[in-house]
């Protein structure tokens, strides 16, 4: 009798367990490791799992995710939610039919009202939303405030002021713009994007992006040649071209923090590490918008603008068996601004700033004034239509790769600016023929 009771109980446990297990859906999520994964786990994943009995997220940071994702999806064993290295990569996966259209979710959950319009629009391919952005960024001018104050320098607001200060600091034996690509060769596109937008102007870049202007036009040639002169002839970036190729990781930030460098054209992802780096030297940093590089007012859109950039996207595996649950997970991500900003604060607002429609009051107390100033001004300025375009967000894959890779041949003196831009136009035409040029929202 005792044995029979135990047997019945065991059977009941197994049956209840089996029924319970069937009710819980596990959504797998592959993500590029960011150094913030513990915080993501705690603030997003654990919070979600604790409040959803029937859906659990299995968050899996993957090393070399770009190399792993493609074969995984092809083999039909990929995760439900996938991290994508930008819109260009997303468009390739869309072309292969590996991503689920998210327009249905977007309509149901009102994502267009939650995300910044340009960031929402960047995820649209052929009229359908396929990805949502993970973080937004822009390019600014960081500077060593302590060195500026000691030398009585004003923050440059025009090209003349910027270049004369760069020359002055170079003459003093300092590095005007510490920067390098030793650990990430595509860093070249940061500079190319800045020079194209700030010299040729965002309107011209936009015209080229939508095919109404040739990449070989004189504005782009002059912008490319200006960068060539600054990086190769004058050695303003890193100290010399060879230094630029030798510096990587946090080297430029360390040079800026030590006073060896004075200014740095870089992305707002640098918010993450500047304060800790400067804390080691006791100096202060600050940032300012990058001024236009051309005095030709017709090419510019105002006193300054911000380049739009997204740092990675999230898409949904077309083969997912849990499309409804995935929608719930993604909407959780887009629905709590306070939670996302708390997560972003763990990175110094260098990452995980999902482009939601924040108000300045949404930012947690104690947020660095410099970070607040950026997000406030970015919203106001881009909202007024003064924005440019970064290559990793708005260029198709092949043209983007040619942009940052072949420019080194120009800097090495092995290719002319004209030939480089002709090749760029040819790559662009090839991407266009393959239907891979990204759709760009009309400028306001």
């Amino acid at each position, binding site marked *: 009798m005792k044995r029979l009771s135990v047997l019945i109980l065991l059977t009941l446990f197994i049956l209840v367990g089996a029924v319970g297990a069937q009710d819980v859906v596990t959504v797998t999520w592959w993500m590029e490791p960011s150094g913030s994964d513990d915080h993501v786990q705690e603030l997003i994943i654990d919070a979600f799992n604790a409040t959803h009995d029937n859906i659990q997220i299995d968050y899996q940071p993957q090393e070399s995710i770009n190399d792993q994702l493609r074969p995984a999806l092809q083999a039909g064993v990929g995760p439900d939610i996938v991290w994508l290295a930008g819109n260009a990569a997303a468009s390739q996966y869309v*072309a292969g039919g*590996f991503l689920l259209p998210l327009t249905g979710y977007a309509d149901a959950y009102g994502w267009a009202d939650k995300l910044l319009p340009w960031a929402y629009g960047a995820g649209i391919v052929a009229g359908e939303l396929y990805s949502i952005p993970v973080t937004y960024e822009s390019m600014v001018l960081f500077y060593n405030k302590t060195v500026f104050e000691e030398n009585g320098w004003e923050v440059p607001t025009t090209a003349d002021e910027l270049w004369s200060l760069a020359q002055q600091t170079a003459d003093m034996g300092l590095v005007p713009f510490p920067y390098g690509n030793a650990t990430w060769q595509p860093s070249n596109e940061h500079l190319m994007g800045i020079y194209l937008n700030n010299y040729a102007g965002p309107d011209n870049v936009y015209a080229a992006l939508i095919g109404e202007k040739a990449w070989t036009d004189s504005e782009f040639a002059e912008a490319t040649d200006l960068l060539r002169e600054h990086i190769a002839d004058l050695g303003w970036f890193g100290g010399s*071209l060879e230094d630029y*190729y*030798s*510096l990587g990781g946090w*080297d430029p930030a360390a040079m800026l923090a030590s006073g060896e460098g004075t200014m740095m054209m870089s992305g707002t992802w640098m918010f993450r590490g500047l304060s800790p780096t400067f804390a080691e030297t006791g100096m202060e940093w600050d940032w300012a918008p990058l001024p236009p590089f051309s005095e030709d007012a017709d090419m510019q859109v105002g006193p300054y603008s911000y380049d739009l950039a997204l740092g990675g996207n999230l898409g949904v595996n077309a083969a997912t068996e849990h499309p409804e649950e995935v929608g719930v997970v993604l909407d959780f991500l887009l629905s709590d601004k306070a939670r996302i900003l708390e997560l972003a604060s763990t990175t110094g607002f260098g990452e995980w700033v999902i482009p939601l429609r924040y108000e300045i009051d949404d930012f947690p107390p104690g947020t660095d004034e410099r970070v607040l100033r950026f997000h406030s001004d970015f919203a106001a300025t881009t909202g007024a239509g003064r924005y440019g375009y970064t290559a990793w967000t708005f260029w198709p894959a092949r043209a983007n*790769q040619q942009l940052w*890779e072949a420019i*080194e041949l120009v800097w090495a003196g092995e290719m002319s600016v004209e030939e480089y831009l002709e090749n760029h136009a040819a790559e662009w035409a090839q991407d266009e023929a393959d239907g891979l040029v990204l759709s760009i929202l009309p400028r306001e």
Partner: protein
Amino acid sequence: MAFKIDSRVGVTTAYRWRQILSNYVFLAPVVALNLIVIVIPSLTSIYISMTKWSGLNQPEFIGLANFDRLINDPIYWKSLSHNVIWTIFFLTIPVFMGLMGAFLLSGIKRFQMLYRVAFFIPYVIASVVNTELWRTLLHPRHGIGAWLAKQGIEGFDIRVFGSKHTALYGVAFVDSWHFWGFLVIVYLAAMYQVQPDLYEVAILEGASRFQRFRHVTVPGIRPTLVFTLLMIMIWSVPAFDYIYLLTDGGPAHASEVLGTYLYNMSFFRFEVGYAAAIGVTMALITACIVAIFVILRRRGWEI
């Protein structure tokens, strides 16, 4: 008698068949494995090399267009030339160092094991660790050269990986630093197989240490030496990790090799068809190297 012979023949034939069958049964797993991981992917690669394919969309058959593009691609030829330089570098410097190290090591009795371990350690350290170590040591701002410059010793603060003139050789140096200890151990093991009598005779004949090395050691370890040369030539074709980690083929393709070029084509540009064409040429080059060795051996070369 005839019956016995027939019987014996019958038994022998059955035995032979069983043996042949059992051989194939034992071979089957390896054959199946090679089919799955070598033959099928190789044939697939050949097909992909004749397609335009992003790795994600439907492959479009384009015949030999990718190979035609290769012929006119200056970066491909530049990469190939770097593979040749890489091969020559590894056939000379690490081999010379390996031979010298092994020969010198064979002459000492005390602490030999300690030296062996010391030489071999870099070989077992992950390439990521090795490259980070040397990137730090050769860093233009806080590496050895910069430190020496601060002490007033100029001339060593060069940007090894940042200069298009030195990047390839700098990476090859780092890779050979990790590799030559392996050659030392291999050559040392081979040297212990050389008959001691030969050295004794050479000493009696008044041969110097170098002459003993030249005329006794080298001929004595020739099969091992040739084998390592063959392997170096084969391994140099898909050279990738140290270059990818230290320079990613830059600056300005100055250290680009076929492996890094193929990788960038596949994973940055989504041109998997073209990358497969590069891969096919790499396989052909490797096949040519092996074929040359086989032909030379058949012609009587002692290799």
